[in-house]
């Protein structure tokens, strides 16, 4: 039986997280191929429904990578994202799904290695949890 490879959706902002991604690229660090990245102008624009949809479509985990609290150029983007991630954690908990399947991270432009490490850490954590849903029978 082949090893379970989790499907993970990552939202990352166009400022700090993108800069971190560029730094990681320069360090030749490789992202896991199972993490699908969605680039957003600011994590504050990510709605609760945006975070739920991937689970609805079969994702096993979701995470948001944004700026640090004192460096969001839109002032409170990452704080808003944190609140929405918390709301989704509560929803998942009520659905009997491990709330650890969704996380939020703050990055600075200098943390290139961390950008890639987060993707690997989430992959490993969710691989241990197993699939979020059963295969759907129409």
């Amino acid at each position, binding site marked *: 039986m082949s090893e379970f490879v989790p499907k993970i959706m990552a939202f990352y902002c166009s400022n700090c997280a993108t800069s971190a991604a560029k730094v990681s690229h320069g360090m030749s660090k490789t992202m896991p191929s199972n993490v699908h990245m969605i680039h957003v102008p600011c994590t504050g624009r990510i709605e609760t429904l945006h975070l739920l949809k991937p689970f609805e479509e079969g994702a096993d985990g979701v995470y948001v990578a944004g700026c640090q609290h004192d460096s969001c150029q839109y002032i409170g983007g990452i704080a808003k994202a944190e609140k929405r991630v918390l709301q989704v954690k509560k929803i998942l908990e*009520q*659905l009997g799904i491990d709330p650890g399947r969704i996380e939020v991270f703050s990055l600075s432009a200098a943390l290139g290695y961390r950008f890639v490490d987060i993707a690997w850490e989430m992959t490993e954590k969710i691989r241990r949890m197993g699939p979020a849903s*059963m295969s*759907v029978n129409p």
Partner: protein
Amino acid sequence: MIVAEAKPISEILTMVKGLKKVLVLGCKGCVTVCNVGGAKEAGILASSIRIAGRKEGIMVDVGEHTLERQCDPEYIEEVKDIVPSYDAVVSIACGVGPQFLSERYPGAKVFPGVNTKFMGGAVAHGIWSERCAGCGTCVIHYFGGMCPIARCSKSLMNGPCGGSSHGKCEISKDVDCIWDMIVRKAMDQGRLNDLLEFRPPKSWTTARDGGPRRMIREELVK
């Protein structure tokens, strides 16, 4: 506005357990303003029901629709072609919505998706506070524009009780003593004597005590 809060999703899942087609019906009225029953929240609830189905390996067909209001028959009529095609409707309007739906579509299973709390307003973003008890005979002008029926824990009409302390009610430090506010405002305005004026006991016949209420305005009746 009428303020409501979402029911626990687990409670809603129990309601729709075993059903294959569920319609989540939002309302663009008060519940949209208090962020509990509008199009956005209908999307979140519908998505949650789908995720719960997927977790169990079941494909639940969850539709979403949001009406202008669920407290007017002409808007309830708008879903006449879609309601019969669903096994159940979860209305996330206030308690009026699911009742209007049940009355118009007697063959449909209708479930309430929110708990209706009170009539009030937003005192800050994300914080709502009760302001009106719907007693049917407004008397707030006697009390500096503040309602002791809705805002005093005991609905006292004649001054603060012994539980008033430093402007707060004894039930919680988060609850202002409305009588403290009424008296202070009267003092600030130099109208403290107004509170000493004799008034007969309030008639509660216009409140819920008089039974379910109905209002007819002849000039509007067709």
